[in-house]
């Protein structure tokens, strides 16, 4: 009973930063022309875009060939973290639900939890980070990637922010 009063009400501002595209609407050539961010082909609503999608926790995911997603943290996040001194990453084979904690990055500032952007299975972890955790700061979108995972539920990807929406999100929280 007392605990119910303690439970935090979920922040309601997430929904305002979701992309405006309706998920189920098929893309017509006309619609495509007015949405220059997306590198989609007309023939399919293929998600094999090299574009990054972002979570409100400042993680990005990039879908590679074969439907595997590479996950990392954004430039905003690495800057806020400060110099990363250790990357605590999951074991290959770990099953993750969207928003599950999958590890932590330790910097001088704090140990910051990492949250899975999607539901899926960890298929690869960046072993370079063991000896060179600073890659997360130096090259957060490239060499400082954290892990790769399967995408069990592609619809979850649609709900993430594209780069433009993420930029707007950052500006809104910086104020």
């Amino acid at each position, binding site marked *: *009973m*007392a*605990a119910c*009063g*303690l*439970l*935090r*009400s979920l*922040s309601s501002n997430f929904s305002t930063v979701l992309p405006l595209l309706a998920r189920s609407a098929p893309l017509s050539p006309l619609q495509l022309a007015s949405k220059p961010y997306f590198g989609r082909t007309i023939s399919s609503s293929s998600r094999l875009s090299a574009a990054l999608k972002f979570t409100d*926790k400042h993680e990005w995911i990039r879908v590679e060939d074969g439907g595997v997603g590479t996950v990392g943290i954004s430039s905003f996040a690495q800057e806020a973290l400060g110099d990363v*001194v*250790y990357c*605590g990453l999951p*074991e290959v084979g770990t099953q993750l639900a969207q928003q599950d904690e999958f590890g*932590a990055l*330790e*910097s001088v*500032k*704090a*140990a*910051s*939890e990492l*949250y899975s952007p999607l539901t899926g299975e960890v298929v690869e972890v960046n072993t370079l980070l*063991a*000896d060179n955790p600073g890659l997360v700061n130096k090259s957060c979108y490239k060499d400082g990637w954290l892990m790769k995972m399967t995408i069990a539920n592609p619809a979850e990807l649609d709900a993430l922010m594209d780069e433009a929406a993420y930029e707007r999100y950052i500006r809104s929280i910086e104020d």
Partner: protein
Amino acid sequence: HQNQASCSAVSTLTCFCFLTCSGFSTRSGLVLQSRSTDVHQNLALEDWIDANVDLQRRSVLLLWRNRPAVVIGRHQNPWAECDLKAMRRAGIALARRRSGGGTVFHDLGNLNLTFFASKKAYDRQRNLKVVTEALRRLRPELDVRATDRLDIILNGHYKISGTASRLSRQSSYHHCTLLHSADRSALSAVLRPSCPGIHSNATPSVPSPVANLIDHAPSLQWEELVEGVAEQYNKGSTDSGTVLVDPSDETLFPDVGRLEAELRGWNWTFGKTPKFSVETQLQLPEARRSGRLQVDVKNGRIDGCSIDAPADWICERLSGELSAVLVGERFCPNAAAAAVAALLRCENRRMRELCAAVLQVMG
């Protein structure tokens, strides 16, 4: 006695209802004090508060202390940081916390402070100011200041406080120690490696000379210190006083028992250790020469093992057999001893000696 217990439970509930009351617009704090001296219970309470309390509009300070325990940081290696054998003998607990940072020794003379806040309100220097200002008011003659590393140094020299913190979904916590009257000889006896030859990229500790506040302000009482800090934290807010809580009380903290069990478990405490290897000599007095042991440890278990004993003293096949039996076992003398039990009982005295030498390394 019964009345007292229920009264404090009611006041606790009142305070918690306070936390979510939407009528409050001022950002006031709440000071909690744990009744428990069990390190795992207290760490579980931290986890619970972090996950369940709405910190967007108010902050919480938790004051706690533990019976003797060594607390390692999130990504540290307990074998490298502390002497597990000595701790077992002395009944000193081991805990891995969820925040980063280095290894500390806790006992009843060490006050722990955890500052809970939203991620936006995360400000460690401001938190440490609560401590330094409180100390300045209590004993103005003491020179206490926070460094860039967020230690608190007494009289320019001695570390009396270390800091660590954790950032999660919506919230943050920053906790620090404060040495009032800790047992410094116990501290130095356990804060050394369990075994030699560890190669690891786990986060290291930065050792510092420490002192207790009572070494320099002998009249400072524990209660005085606790009250002084609580008062400083509550300065300028509508709340005052501290609320005593029992971290094992599931009516106040539902599911806290599960958090405690997770923190107490082997998988978290040892299994979370970053991959490391040990390379060291094996003491074989019977052979009058030493051997070499090389072990790879992953998730706290032996992942690879190679034993190099003089071939004219014990044949390679036998030392190979011992290596093979150990792979997959926890890197722990008890677990390993159980695994090699049959070999330890075998007729070959040299095999028994080799086993004993290997177990000796594990701490």
